[in-house]
């Protein structure tokens, strides 16, 4: 999953550095991602993983690092899986 997240960040986050140089815990905003770019990242993640980020997850911290995005997706996909 982290590889797909990194690919989406590389395409949509408009980072000032190569995403390959970032650790899973690196601060994506410090790496150049704007709040508007984070919306594109969210929409791309929703398309890739077939989930929808609920309003409560529309927080800066959720999109602050690869690890925090992964945690949010884990929660959303486990809920989706349990519902099936």
């Amino acid at each position, binding site marked *: 999953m982290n590889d797909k997240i990194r690919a989406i960040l590389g395409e949509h986050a*408009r980072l000032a550095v190569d995403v390959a140089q970032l650790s899973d815990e690196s601060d994506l905003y410090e790496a150049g991602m704007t709040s508007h770019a984070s919306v594109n990242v969210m929409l791309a993640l929703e398309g890739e993983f077939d989930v929808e980020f609920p*309003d409560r997850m529309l927080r800066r911290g959720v999109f602050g690092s690869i690890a925090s995005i992964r945690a949010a997706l884990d929660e959303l996909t486990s809920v989706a899986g349990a519902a099936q």
Partner: protein
Amino acid sequence: MFSGLTIGLDVVDVGTIEESLERFGGRYLDRVYTPREIAYALAANDPATRARRLAARFAAKEAALKALCARERGIPPRAIEVVRSDDGSIALELSGAALAAARETSAASLSLSVSHEGKLAVAVVICTRVKP
């Protein structure tokens, strides 16, 4: 009683709005903007003006979140709306989680100013607070 103010500022590259429209289309619009904001922006004849109007509105939403100190509260962008009066003046209208955040933090008023120049849109929001 007046107890202070906080300021939020945000800058948006209009080009990023054009990219979002191209890549995500209506899904992007519906997640970020209210029906009135979309109607106003799309009423412009040329794509560049549409993107500028949306960029100014996105900047206003972000500036409002900063002024409200609410970027970690889970507030959807649609809960902060830029509304236009007949005379062309603009203001912010809050709903849902944004309105709740304003009430919980004793925000008494939000003042908005937006501008754009070239490919940049800028918004400033000043929030006044009163002692509960």
